[in-house]
């Protein structure tokens, strides 16, 4: 958590980082990442599912696939990757995220709808579907939400990453794509050995990254990959103790997480693909 004495300074720093108006992609100036890096990462390895949170289909680019969790008083908190690629996660109380990131109307509605409800991949998905049906995430997401509900299966994402490797312009991207595919493969393997509720936790986040990859254009793949690496789903310690899940451990791949990896329109397309996976 943020130390209370740092909260004001950190909010100001974040606001500088995510300075944006309207619908445009988040704008990050060159000096902002070091500014944020003055603040220690707030969370390294979550011990419990509650501390980990659930990856949420936010449509604000800077928040896309950030984790949503409840703080000590059940207030919503956002757990997000450090823009500089430093290890660990930043934890923002929702009011700070509102101030710094100016979330979209759909994101605000999602958090409001979840309220104090216990968070799980299923409850977040149901709330996201309801918000999309209201139309605040656009007509495409509304159509997707109205279509037959299907559980997203990110298995093909691993293959898509491997298929992309020969096209990757840089060797580092090829390595990162392979690592990410391997981690997803481990998650899919662990989920296959788990009962439904645990499987949903084990795979939490992957389908969102898969959806973003699916709607992304070829020219944006390198940026999407780096962002996906930064958002790579992280198991909590209690998940690692579940049968078949020990392979999920290990340090996640480190990567800088460019904030200009997508526009809000792209995130909304990803939401639609996530709600109605092919």
């Amino acid at each position, binding site marked *: 958590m943020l130390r209370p004495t740092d909260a004001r300074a950190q909010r100001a720093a974040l606001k500088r980082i995510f300075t944006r108006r309207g619908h445009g992609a988040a*704008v990050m100036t060159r000096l902002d990442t070091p500014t944020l890096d003055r603040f220690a990462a707030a969370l390294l390895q979550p011990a419990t599912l509650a501390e980990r949170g659930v990856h949420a289909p936010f449509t604000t680019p800077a928040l896309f696939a950030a984790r949503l969790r409840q703080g000590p008083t059940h207030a919503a908190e956002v757990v997000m990757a450090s823009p500089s690629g430093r290890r660990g996660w930043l934890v923002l109380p929702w009011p700070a995220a509102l101030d710094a990131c100016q979330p979209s109307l759909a994101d605000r509605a999602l958090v409001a709808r979840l309220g104090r409800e216990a968070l799980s991949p299923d409850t977040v998905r149901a709330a996201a579907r309801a918000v999309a049906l209201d139309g605040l995430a656009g007509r495409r997401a509304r159509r997707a939400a109205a279509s037959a509900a299907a559980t997203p299966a990110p298995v093909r994402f691993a293959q898509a990453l491997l298929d992309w490797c020969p096209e990757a312009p840089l060797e580092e991207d090829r390595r990162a794509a392979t690592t990410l595919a391997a981690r997803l493969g481990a998650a899919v393997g662990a989920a296959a050995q788990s009962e439904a509720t645990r499987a949903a936790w084990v795979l939490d986040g992957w389908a969102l990254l898969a959806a973003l990859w699916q709607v992304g254009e070829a020219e944006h793949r390198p940026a999407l990959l780096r962002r996906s690496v930064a958002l790579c789903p992280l198991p909590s310690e209690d998940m690692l103790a579940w049968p078949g899940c020990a392979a999920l451990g290990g340090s996640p791949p480190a990567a800088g997480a460019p904030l200009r990896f997508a526009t809000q329109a792209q995130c909304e397309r990803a939401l639609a693909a996530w709600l109605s996976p092919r």
Partner: protein
Amino acid sequence: MRAGAGRLAVAPVTRAPETLRELLSATAQASDSQLMKLVRTLDAMPRRGSADDLLRPVRPRLRTLQPPRPLTLSRLFFLPLDPLLVSPCDWRPRRGQVPRSAIAPIAAAAAPVLAAGLQAELAGLSLDALHLVAGLGRRLWPAAAALDLPVPVPGWKDTGLPAAACAEVLSTSRAIWRHGAGLWRLRMEGPQGPPEASARPVLQGVLADGGEALGLALATVLPFAAQPSRLAGAAAALGGGAAPAADRALDSFIAALDPGLEASGLAAGARSAERLTALIEDLAVTVSPAHAARAQRLHGLRQAVGQSCLRRLEAEAGPTLAAALDGLAAAPEITDAAMETLEASMVGLRALADAARRLDRAVVAEAALRPAIAALGTMLPRLPDSGTGLRRADALRLLELLDGPDRAAECQRAPG
């Protein structure tokens, strides 16, 4: 409102253009789709020759439009040099330029020696296959740099340039080909800066060939750098005479920036505005008392881009947009596709206004959007939550796109 489309108005042509001047004028006035068709036609010609000149007035637009281009052998040869390419009539000695008319004879002279097997690999590829360019280029460019070609190369007289120019053009080309793979990598990493850690070793290698080579290399990478100041700074820090070359390359890059946003569709214009604004902000850190001319140029650029944003906003938004939105509210049906097009237009307008704000034109830019914002705010309470026409959620989204989520959230909370 032009709603994200290309240019709408093209002067009626009463007869086919005949002279080169008329052709150039027609090309300059062509719509985006006409331009794409022209490029396809030219690319299908086995020898383009002087027909290539037709594209001269529209090359800045082509950079934004990015039409699909086939990856030919001659294009692969000169890809790492493309920022140095100029029309033959603009070519001047000792400026590190390569006339486009030199591509065909040089590629033809080098191909028999170097391109065995490559032609087949290139068949069917387009310039979109950037990932393949690195691999193919790694094989081609260093070998091309080492190739001993006759001077002038056969067919040089068709370039329209003196024979003496051939040696200089070859020298320029070799300077880039020698480090083509590294420079191409920096170009690919341009959106990330490129990072200094990547740039330093490549530029160090180029500097071993001299300050002039470094200047040429920077000229090929700077147009693709998100943070040209860092790239030039990394070069200048290499020492050994690098700083003056880096300074000159940066000044040339700044001088070549085109502040115009009028020529393309709204989305492309907004992207250009965002890019130019980011560049101006980045380049501002390179100004010191020793760079008075650069400061002046950047100031002029700032003014010009700001004005371009405002002109575009005033043409696309203002009372016309507000009236169009009012009309939309009364329409019995709005398709999902129409709504998405409208939203894309709002995104473009917001991006233009954001660029204008960053260029100190916030007041006028916001004023241009105000009628549309007011119209949306007024219609919100009477819009239904469902139905085939404009819904409340649709209008809230348009408001969010134009005025930001905070303001839209306020309107959402306001009692009907």
